[in-house]
């Protein structure tokens, strides 16, 4: 705004964002932009408290009344430093490091290249072994990523960067096409938001068995090498390839989210599902290897909700509807992870197709009071069905995506709208438990395009 219209522009920020603001201003090419920092958060204050505590308050760091500082920012002539147009660049260091293994582990920790768990150091041999699983040029552009909003710059990364992340995560080479497919979307696993968002991915197709993914007991937990390391590689690619997850600059989760470590990786239990696979609902053929990305609040046990039916003979479809209505529309809609027995119960309750189930769950609530959080979209019904109905738009990015992947373009389905209702089936049959929450399905991409 300041450079485009040649008028002074400023923003009110709380001081905790100072480091991030300076980083963003630097990479945006205006490191001297004058930002007005407040005394603290405004959320929760009455207008009178805003007036007395913030507007008429004194900046404890400078000793100046806040609004006087603001007036100075609008009127004081630019300094020499603010007028300095000397070209600047971000230094990411050398292409390689050579040292002892012990020192390199320390270096990777100090430079925040890791998730604080031990990593496998990415030697050329290990990375080459990983790259042998794809026909793509190691130096080909794979994706561009930002931390989830304009609050951070967009970085780019190559096929090799994804292979490096895969090695560091401990992934086996045969997992690489899945990791490349995820990386090609540009969606970060580690969103900058102070909300502390989660990210996830649904894997469909025969590749689930080919690489040993778990879709039985403990399906979405860290109980299989493939599920765990694929999810971890995504986070490490986000941290390093996309410069995400750096506390203070590109990460601000107030409380944080443990899902960011390995993400919500869902290999669908297609064999035990009474309905067509999620990927088919997104327009792909059955048995085609596809990954669909998710982002949002995350999921937790359906037993958490007050509306859960604890009777001996619960009606699960009604419980899903009740939870949907509780959180509808939500910023990310309602996303259900059903275990096979719960899916069977829902079929027995009369919903042998997902179209019928969607129609039931998303039916207007006659007792609903208007509620629409800022920025929320209208409820959109089943996300996958919506996507299937729409024309494919190659190059569509996922929620929070910085952009599509590199050539050749994989088959890409369009985004779903937030506020949707989505269903996937995974897990075992040992008991009647299931998960539900707010996760919006986004981009779906072919995995085989990255072999």
């Amino acid at each position: 705004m300041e450079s485009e219209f040649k008028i002074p522009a400023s923003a009110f920020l709380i001081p905790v964002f100072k480091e991030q603001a300076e980083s963003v201003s630097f990479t945006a090419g205006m490191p001297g932009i004058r930002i007005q920092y407040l005394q603290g958060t405004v959320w929760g204050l009455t207008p009178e408290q805003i007036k007395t505590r913030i507007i008429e308050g004194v900046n404890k760091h400078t000793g100046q009344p806040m609004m006087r500082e603001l007036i100075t920012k609008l009127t004081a002539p630019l300094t020499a430093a603010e007028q300095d147009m000397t070209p600047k660049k971000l230094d990411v260091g050398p292409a390689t490091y050579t040292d002892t293994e012990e020192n390199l582990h320390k270096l990777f920790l100090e430079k925040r290249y890791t998730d604080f768990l031990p990593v496998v150091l990415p030697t050329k041999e290990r990375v080459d072994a990983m790259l042998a699983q794809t026909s793509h040029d190691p130096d080909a552009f794979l994706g561009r990523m930002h931390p989830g909003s304009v609050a951070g710059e967009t970085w780019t990364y190559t096929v090799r960067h994804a292979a490096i992340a895969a090695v560091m995560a401990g992934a086996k080479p045969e997992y690489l096409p899945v990791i490349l497919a995820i990386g090609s979307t540009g969606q970060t696993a580690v969103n900058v938001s102070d909300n502390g968002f989660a990210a996830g991915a649904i894997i469909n197709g025969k590749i689930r068995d080919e690489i040993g993914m778990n879709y039985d007991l403990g399906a979405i937990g860290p109980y299989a090498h493939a599920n765990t390391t694929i999810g971890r590689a995504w986070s490490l690619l986000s941290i390093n390839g996309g410069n995400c997850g750096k506390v203070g600059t590109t990460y601000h989760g107030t409380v944080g989210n443990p899902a960011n470590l390995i993400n919500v990786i869902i290999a669908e239990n297609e064999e035990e599902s009474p309905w067509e696979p999620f990927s088919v609902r997104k327009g792909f053929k059955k048995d085609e290897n596809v990954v669909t990305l998710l982002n949002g609040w995350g999921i937790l046990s359906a037993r958490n909700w007050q509306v859960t039916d604890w009777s001996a003979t619960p009606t699960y479809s009604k419980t899903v509807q009740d939870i949907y209505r509780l959180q509808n529309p939500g910023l990310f809609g309602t996303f259900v992870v059903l275990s096979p027995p719960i899916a069977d119960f829902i079929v027995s309750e009369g919903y042998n197709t997902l179209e019928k189930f969607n129609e039931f769950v998303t039916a207007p609530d006659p007792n609903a009071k208007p509620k629409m959080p800022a920025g929320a979209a209208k409820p959109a019904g089943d996300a996958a069905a919506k996507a299937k109905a729409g024309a494919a738009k190659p190059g569509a990015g996922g929620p929070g995506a910085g952009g599509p992947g590199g050539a050749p373009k994989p088959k890409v389905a369009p985004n779903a709208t937030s506020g949707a209702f989505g269903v996937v089936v995974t897990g075992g049959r040992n008991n009647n438990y299931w998960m539900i929450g707010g996760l919006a399905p986004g981009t779906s991409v072919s995995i085989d395009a990255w072999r």
Partner: protein
Amino acid sequence: MKLRMAVVVALCVGLVCGIAVTQGYAQGGKITVYNPLGTPPPIEMKAMAPRLNTLDGKTIYLVNTGFPNSGPFMQVVGEWFAANYPKTKIEIRSQGMSNMPPALKEEIGKNADAVLFGLGH
């Protein structure tokens, strides 16, 4: 005995060296690894705008970015300007959490002498 020990030591050294080679070790027990960082965007320097020599007769836009309590905050900022800079015209607008609507951007470009966004929580 000495011969057996020498053979064992030689085998161990050979084993360690073999592992070191396959694991990418260089001489001196050092290895070379990739820097995992991607590529940051190029920085295109942008000039800051000249400051205002007075606020009298100027129009300042206050843009509510849609975060919780941003609306009331901007209202209070507007009231402060009205009380302290009565010759300054204040226009309060809301853009929500998403990118600025083109119409609002055009309006600001046409009418504003300065613009303040708020708030980052």
